[in-house]
């Protein structure tokens, strides 16, 4: 366990570490480009050089291991002179693209030049010219003149998805990172090179020219909802004056879940938040649903926009009527594993405890019937494309005694035993293309569908409730490992919207019952009390990197920041 001094601070290091890693843990900035903790160490950018006493030359902090008795200075005059010189070399051929470069404002080249580099250029030659805004693939644009040849992108493609699309061609100052002719940068993780690139050489096609970093005023921690891996993310939201909008999703480091990465699907799929087709107001439709279903268009009475209070009153009346006539078993609920833990808990409370129906299930696709969810690609993507299959299981979103599963509920709807069905964020028509779903749903007296966007199933519903997306909620998902991870509200929900907990609370009240508190922390009081995998857990126990329930049983030394 070597003890060393770095900038006068003595530190003992428990495992073999490089000087750079020690500096990082102490919060000492050692500027660098080519080093990244998730990639191989190459030591070629030469920016991380520091002074080590008794060593004749400056040492690269990234690949010099600390030794007992080492004395390191990260900001000595010798270091500063070397840094200034390296920054000058970086800028020689760098184009003055800042005004048109997406990286401006969050650019380590700008930052380190400002801090450590020269203020003026001594370069009087012609700069090397290269290709600009070359499309490398579906998500990435390349501005070769900006590239500083740190090779992070090359190493990433080789080492993480192991697809090796990018490589350095030629040598010396003719070196250029490109693709093999005719090939495309389209591995499922290509977007990570955007984060890795220290300059504006590799940028997001989606985000290009959309915003400046200083207009992104909210950087909200959340979790990707598109599969059960639960990659930790940051949602970058542009401020209200320019139009509040989610403009960018980036991965957030969580070594236990997604390391530093996320897949392209999760990164780039969020346009639906501002999709004009999005369901915004609840609607109510009278009349025989079968007509509309058969004709594939709303013949008969059209859906009418209605305020939540009105609509929920009517719905409550309808449900009460059915329950009084045919018992709670005439009501069923399919609650997607896309929903957050708190929403699922309240759904269970409403349908199983308050209404008293045993028909509750989340399992729509075959993969959800398996005990554990398999990896899709050996990296981050998993085969269950919903965020919270584990939460749904752990919270018992399953049929009670004598209860029907989803297939059973459809059959019961078809033969008239099930009179009312609530579908939360599952498009059953699309999920079961070879079953008579339309006909089954068409026989229901009350079909309630909650969704973000309209689809075939919502087209058949009597009541359509506009749902909120993950960026518009506070709550948590449980990933495939069983890790409970919080999502936070990044976007202001539509003015007319109401969250699912609010809807259930109001519906309960309208049938004369009390759902109980609906804020996440209060919901977790109830979750924590009940026996089950989450017993004893409180909302505050779930830190930014999530919580594995077995950890919570031990003394709370976990859940530290990285």
């Amino acid at each position: 366990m070597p003890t060393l001094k770095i900038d006068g601070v003595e530190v003992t290091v428990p495992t073999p570490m490089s000087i750079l890693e020690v500096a990082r843990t102490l919060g000492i900035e050692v500027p660098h480009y080519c080093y990244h903790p998730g990639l191989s160490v190459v030591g070629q950018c030469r920016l991380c050089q520091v002074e080590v006493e008794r060593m004749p030359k400056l040492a690269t902090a990234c690949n010099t291991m600390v030794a007992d008795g080492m004395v390191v200075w990260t900001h000595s005059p010798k270091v500063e002179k070397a840094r200034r010189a390296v920054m000058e070399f970086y800028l020689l051929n760098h184009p003055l693209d800042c005004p048109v470069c997406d990286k401006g404002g969050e650019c380590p080249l700008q930052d380190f030049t400002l801090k450590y580099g020269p203020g003026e250029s001594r370069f009087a030659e012609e700069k090397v010219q290269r290709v600009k805004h070359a499309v490398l693939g579906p998500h990435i644009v390349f501005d070769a003149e900006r590239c500083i040849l740190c090779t992070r992108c090359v190493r990433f493609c080789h080492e993480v998805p192991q697809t090796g699309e990018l490589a350095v061609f030629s040598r010396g100052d003719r070196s250029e990172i490109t693709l093999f002719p005719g090939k495309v940068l389209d591995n499922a993780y290509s977007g990570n090179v955007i984060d890795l690139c220290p300059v504006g050489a590799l940028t997001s096609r989606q985000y290009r020219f959309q915003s400046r970093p200083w207009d992104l005023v909210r950087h909200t921690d959340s979790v990707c909802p598109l599969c059960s891996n639960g990659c930790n993310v940051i949602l970058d939201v542009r401020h209200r004056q320019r139009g509040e909008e989610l403009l960018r999703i980036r991965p957030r480091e969580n070594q236990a879940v997604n390391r530093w990465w996320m897949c392209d699907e999760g990164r780039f799929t969020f346009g639906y938040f501002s999709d004009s087709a999005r369901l915004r107001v609840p609607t109510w439709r009278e009349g025989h649903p079968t007509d509309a279903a058969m004709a594939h268009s709303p013949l008969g009475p059209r859906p009418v926009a209605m305020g939540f209070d009105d609509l929920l009153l009517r719905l409550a009346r309808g449900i009460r009527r059915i329950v009084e006539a045919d018992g709670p078993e005439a009501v069923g609920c399919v609650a997607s594993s896309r929903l957050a833990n708190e929403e699922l808990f309240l759904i269970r409370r409403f349908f199983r405890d308050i209404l008293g129906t045993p028909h509750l299930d989340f399992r729509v696709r075959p993969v959800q019937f398996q005990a554990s969810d398999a990896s899709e690609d050996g990296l981050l993507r998993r085969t269950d494309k919903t965020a919270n299959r584990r939460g749904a299981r752990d919270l018992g979103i399953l049929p009670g005694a004598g209860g029907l599963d989803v297939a059973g509920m459809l059959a019961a709807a078809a033969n008239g035993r099930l009179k009312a069905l609530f579908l939360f964020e599952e498009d059953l028509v699309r999920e079961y293309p070879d079953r008579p779903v339309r006909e089954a749903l068409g026989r229901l007296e009350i079909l309630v569908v909650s969704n973000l966007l309209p689809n075939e199933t919502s087209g058949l519903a009597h009541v359509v409730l506009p749902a909120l997306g993950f960026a518009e909620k506070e709550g948590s998902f449980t990933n495939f490992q069983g890790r409970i991870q919080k999502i936070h509200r990044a976007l202001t929900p539509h003015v007319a919207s109401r969250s699912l907990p609010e809807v259930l609370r109001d519906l309960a009240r309208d049938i004369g019952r009390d759902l109980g508190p609906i804020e996440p922390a209060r919901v977790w009081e109830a979750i924590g009390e009940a026996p089950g995998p989450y017993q004893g857990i409180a909302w505050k126990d779930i830190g930014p990197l999530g919580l594995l329930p077995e950890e919570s049983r031990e003394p709370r030394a976990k859940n530290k920041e990285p």
Partner: protein
Amino acid sequence: MISNETKQRCDGLARRYPEKRSALIPMLHAVQAEVGHLSPEAIEWVAAALGLSAADVMSVASFYDMFNLERVGKHMIYVCHNLSCSLLGVERLIRHLENRLGIRMGETTPDGLITLKRMECLAACGTAPAIQIDGNFYEQVTPQILDDLLDRLRDGRLHAMGKGPDGMSGR
């Protein structure tokens, strides 16, 4: 595209090293010798043979001066333009060469016969100026010697590799 003979040679090359990736540069030499230059197809063939990505192989090939990623002429003339050869007048030789063939260094004659390439030190400084034609050294070259060599090249009378007046070693 690649002959069986070259394929077998490449197999043999891959087998003789403790790690087969070491065969990459020898294989590129073999393939280039047959195809004339390292076309994208040639590169992809080599990549597949060694289980590497095409980008990786192209990255390696593009690092080295002797690998031609573009089409080149039937004959390759390397002219060293480093210090000792320059001191002994190689730039005059280069001008002569360019005038005679009507192309600049780095270019190929329109009939596809000859490509000219500036090279760095070829280790023939004692017998400067030095050139190579298709891998054969010709040293202490004057414009007259050059003219003679080019005539013989055109006529197909340029000797294969060997010692003697055609291919002297630096001594």
